[in-house]
């Protein structure tokens, strides 16, 4: 069974996204409400993928991603950014980071799992 870590400072979005992935794909979900907690959770829980918000107080998504890349325990985990920023300039900035993919808010709760699978090339 796939295990996914959701990092987002918005409680409601974490809950909805978790419910959506559990209900539609049956995945096991871990959550964290900040970048720092997220790094800890990723190192301990070894998820198959991380779904992470971009704009968070404290450490934002891109910074958290860079930190994870420096840590051998988390460097290999694919990270998908989930963002409400849709302008071309933001998208190009994210693409340059080297993340596995960028998904957009508001997402469709019924196809979110499918989008993640397709982006990461999962066939199960």
């Amino acid at each position: 069974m796939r295990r996914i870590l959701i990092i987002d400072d918005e409680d409601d979005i974490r809950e909805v996204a978790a419910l959506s992935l559990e209900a539609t794909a049956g995945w096991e979900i871990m959550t964290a409400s900040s970048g720092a907690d997220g790094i800890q959770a990723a190192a301990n829980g070894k998820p198959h993928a991380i779904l992470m918000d971009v704009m968070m107080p404290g450490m934002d998504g891109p910074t958290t991603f860079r930190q994870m890349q420096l840590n051998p325990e988390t460097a290999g985990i694919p990270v998908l950014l989930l963002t409400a920023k849709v302008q071309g300039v933001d998208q190009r900035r994210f693409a340059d980071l080297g993340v596995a993919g960028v998904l957009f808010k508001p997402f469709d709760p019924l196809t979110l799992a499918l989008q993640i699978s397709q982006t990461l090339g999962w066939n199960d």
Partner: protein
Amino acid sequence: MTALPSIAFSLLLLSVFLLGVLTLRLASRTRDQQRELERLNDALRRSRELAEQQQTKLAQRSTLDTVKDEFISTVSHELRTPLTSIRGALGLLTSGMLGEIEPKAQNLLRIASSNTERLIRLINDILDLERMESGRDSLKLRRSSILDLAREAIDTITPMADNAGIRLDLNCAAPRDAIYFDADPDRILQVLTNLLSNAIKFSPSGSTVWVQIHSDVNSLLLKVIDQGRGIPPDKLETVFGRFQQVEAADSSKKGGTGLGLAICRSIVQQHGGAIWAQPNRGGPGTTLWVQLSRSARSSDSTSPEQTTMPVTERGDGLVLVCDDDGSIREVVAEQLRQQGYDILQAGSGEEAISIARQQIARAAGLVNDDRSARPIAAILLDLHMPGLTGWETLERLRESPTTAAIPVIILSVSPPSERMQPQGLAQGWVQKPFNEKLLLAELHRVLISSSGAGQVLLVEQDQQTANVLLSGLREAGVRVDHAATLQQAVDRCLLGAPELMVLDMNLPDGDGFSLVDWMKRQPTLSDVPMVVYSGRELTDAEIQRLRLGPTQLLNKAKVRPKQVEDMVLMMVQRRPETAAVA
């Protein structure tokens, strides 16, 4: 002996007088020069001040743009965040995945869901429109096929059409090599998808939405035709405004945002094209027209003023309009007259043939200044007429040697795809109800292709100078075209490379360097011989930059029109292909 001193005295007086006059004149000339210098200094100071003001304004605008950009980006982010939770929660509930919901509650959830979707579309559209109108999100142009884009749009929208019970039909009347144009394919796809989605929304079930593609030498024309309820005449233009739907209830009933056509127009205009709506003649429904330039001239320029419609050149020539419907004849005649054409009218095929023959006879005994005695440059011909039909008229015109060469443009309710004509009978086709721009473009195209473009292109913004050079060169038997702007010069060059270009460095919408730089990038134009004349001495580096083929430089201040003419004649005659013809 007394005479001598008096002569000497007179001579002395005369020299003093002459010296005085000379001094006075010198003094007055110095004063004139002084004044001129002051005037120039003044002008220089004013222009410096103006430049500084412009600089400040530009800097202010750039700051303002940044602030606005950040604001829009932030607002959009702040709206999307709560919408993410709402959409997610509603979506999961509506799906029934979390348990059965009774029908009444289900209906309320459906209402909440569909309005959430509408709000999301609205935010996306506002962001889209703002981004485009600010001009900061530039087009990513590449050579694209309008036919492929239309097919892609139809594929995307087919599920929606199937749901609504509407058939989609694609018809391309443009030749295979004329479907390519410079475009941002994603943006054009957005326009086509939007137009199709509109057409489907407002069409009755069981009807058809047609997509038709036509082309002429400079542009592509795409029509989306529906059989829906139509747009009232007073709303044909306002539907392209923001939040301007035909009926106030449309946004809630049809789920639109009221920004779709505004976005379409913005995208099309960014491409240097035009979009407009027309009611279908003699039936319900509307036709949406999209005209797109085949080469991206606007993108070559940094000036935002250049993203306008290509300039239609003024017409010149005698055109015979043949239609049995007097009111159509009059409308066509008036539109052509306004463009500078002279008009003859015929109410039947028989009359058209007779007028064409008479005109040849009149032109043979030509009185130079009588514009009405010129040969007919083109005939606009209706197909469905009592007596001789259009086709029969056309055949008779072609049979007679005196009228065989007159170009004919068919003006018919039938689309050109249905033309059953023997090849080469007609040179052009305009479908009724016709659009004025299309009619003029088609006539212009036919006239140019039948006369053959000129050998020499004169690029000169000053009409008087141009007239002097044009008449001089034409008298010498050289075919010359004239462009008064950078844009017109580019338009003319796209029809085919001139044998020689005469270039004035000063143009109202750019300078000679921009034109030459553009030509360097065109394979067929990169070695055109030039006669360049400039108002000032050019530096060596500038001269090097202007060189394509053999190049002659003239200083405008020192050269007379006759010398420019001689230079042109010498250079044209030196060209081997011209020598062979001569």
